[in-house]
């Protein structure tokens, strides 16, 4: 298992290097001149040139790249031009908001999709199978920003049972003491039930929008994988040996069927990282997605660069985790490496 971890870590290094180069190039190639933007509309050419020198944009690309690498090595992602704040600090501050939203959505999706998929396969052709089909079809055909807007419209505007889509917490509730950065956990740890309820009601709509979006591929994969495993030779052996139905379905079938579901989970998670940007925009969620969108709109390249880098590192770490999880379940992977 340690060998598997090390070999996967080794393959992650070139990916990280690639990401560093690509983020650098990408932000330099973005349309718009940050110097002109920040010098202001009425700025003279000299003023723009001054700003450009201040930002270091007058240097050659290789020089800029070396500077960028040196900064990175010091854990410095530069400062946002519009707020003047260090990008690293902003991302670290905002990451818990995004992480809480994404993880709650993911748990919700997994908690519904896997039992639904398993039941649909075991009771093929019954109402639960049809329900599974409806859910997966609906989930695929609804884009996440649309679900988000629709939910806000119905539950906030029409029915008025949800709070206004304005961030993590209602204006007159104060944020819980920062322990994990997750409001749901921190409010419980500090025994602040009112804040917990407030945070939960704010979180509900965006999390459900994202959960609906990731439910479909998970449920579909679980059902399909479970069906094919239930038809496999070794499940027939298990049945022919008289093993209890529960053992056959869970110990024999499900553990094998979960392998492709783990792979799908990794894919869904990376979709969610992207969907975050849209959902955070719709619900004014103060996460890193919203931060990146605002930066992008003002050609503020340091935050964009930081965001892309953070996402890429997250994505690579996530794939590492998925590989390890896979190795944990499947001895063929574990022992082959």
């Amino acid at each position, binding site marked *: 298992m340690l060998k598997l971890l090390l070999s996967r870590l080794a393959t992650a290094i070139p990916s990280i290097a690639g990401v560093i180069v690509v983020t650098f190039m990408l932000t330099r190639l973005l349309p718009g001149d940050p110097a002109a933007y920040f010098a202001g509309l009425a700025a003279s050419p000299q003023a723009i040139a001054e700003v450009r020198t201040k930002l270091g944009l007058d240097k050659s690309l290789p020089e800029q790249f070396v500077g960028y690498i040196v900064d990175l090595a010091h854990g410095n992602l530069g400062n946002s031009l519009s707020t003047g704040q260090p990008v690293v600090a902003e991302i670290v501050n905002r990451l818990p908001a995004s992480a809480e939203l994404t993880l709650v959505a993911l748990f919700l999706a997994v908690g519904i999709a896997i039992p639904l998929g398993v039941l649909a396969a075991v009771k093929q052709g019954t109402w639960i199978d049809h329900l599974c089909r409806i859910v997966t079809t609906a989930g695929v055909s609804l884009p996440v920003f649309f679900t988000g807007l629709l939910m806000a419209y119905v539950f906030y505007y029409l029915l008025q049972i949800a709070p206004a889509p304005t961030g993590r917490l209602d204006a007159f509730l104060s944020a819980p003491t920062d322990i994990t950065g997750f409001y749901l956990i921190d409010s419980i740890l500090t025994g602040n039930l009112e804040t917990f309820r407030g945070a939960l009601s704010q979180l509900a709509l965006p999390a459900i929008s994202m959960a609906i979006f990731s439910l479909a591929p998970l449920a579909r994969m679980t059902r399909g994988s479970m069906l094919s495993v239930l038809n496999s030779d070794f499940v027939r*052996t298990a049945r022919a040996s008289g093993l209890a139905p529960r053992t056959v379905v869970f110990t024999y079938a499900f553990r094998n069927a979960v392998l492709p579901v783990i792979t799908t989970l990794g894919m869904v998670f990376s979709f969610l990282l992207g969907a975050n940007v849209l959902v955070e925009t719709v619900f004014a969620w103060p996460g890193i997605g919203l931060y990146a969108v605002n930066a992008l709109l003002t050609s503020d390249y340091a935050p964009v660069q930081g965001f892309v880098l953070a996402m890429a590192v997250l994505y690579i770490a996530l794939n590492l985790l998925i590989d390890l999880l896979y190795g944990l379940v499947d001895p063929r992977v574990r022992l082959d490496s």
Partner: protein
Amino acid sequence: MVAIPALAVEDLSVEFRTRSGVVKVLDHVGFTVEKGETVALVGESGSGKSVTAFAVMGILDAAGKVTSGRAMFGGSDLLAQSERDLAELRGRELSMIFQNPRTALNPIRRVGQQIADVLVRHGGATRPDAPREAIKMLKKVRIPDPERRAEAYPFELSGGMCQRIMIAIALACRPALLIADEPTTGLDVTTQAVIMDLIGELGRDSGMATIFITHDLGLAAEYCDRIVVMHAGHIVESAPSRALFANARHPYSAKLLAATPGETASLASLVSIPGGLPDLRRADLPACRYSGRCERLTDACAQPLPHKTVGERHDVACWNPL
């Protein structure tokens, strides 16, 4: 003295409902297996051998329906039992070994654990004792270094080893009846012999009845007391092995024998059987499903199939036997 057979299948019919219509896979199949006896079920691919076995075991897939018949086993009809009662019997009183041992074992569970699962389920051992009992079973099927092999996963073992594990699973609870569905297909000839000897020996030790499914008549003759010949869901002939080889009465059995390499026949003299199995989805299947390929076809063959006894435990379902 009339002994009660270990298994008596009577009048068994099975249909599969498929998208392209109802397939009448088994039609009034009947045969018996005495206690301690080894009976071969032979016939070409698609003749319904596996379906017969699955029906008896109660593990037909959802599309398959038993439409008539009984399978008397230990005083009760297997086909009339609830799934729950049947699950109690499977693995304990009647067991099955499958073709393709590599895929027939759970790929991500240690083989010792898979044997232990069966033992624990049927009260052959308690959870804490099960690993030790599983190792004993591995010794019994003559796996070298059983303590270490018990910890292996199927992909770490050869096909022959996997088939021994299958045998260990099937025989763990000393069943009264074993159905071996082409247990040696896909194994090399030496391993084939080892596996067949192992099944025969363990069966004799415990007085177990065995049904051995194969399309290899040579193998059937070598290891079985009697041979039951199937064609397109009918049993066309059943006889003691020697009697069948000496004096096959059904035209299909005779063709099968002629197609089997043996001491007397050289490879060059092998004949293939003309034609193929009839399409079992047809509504107007002839009474004799071999009639389309038969050289001895007469008008009499349109009548319902006869069951003629032509010798000691030798039956044939043909109007014009050889």
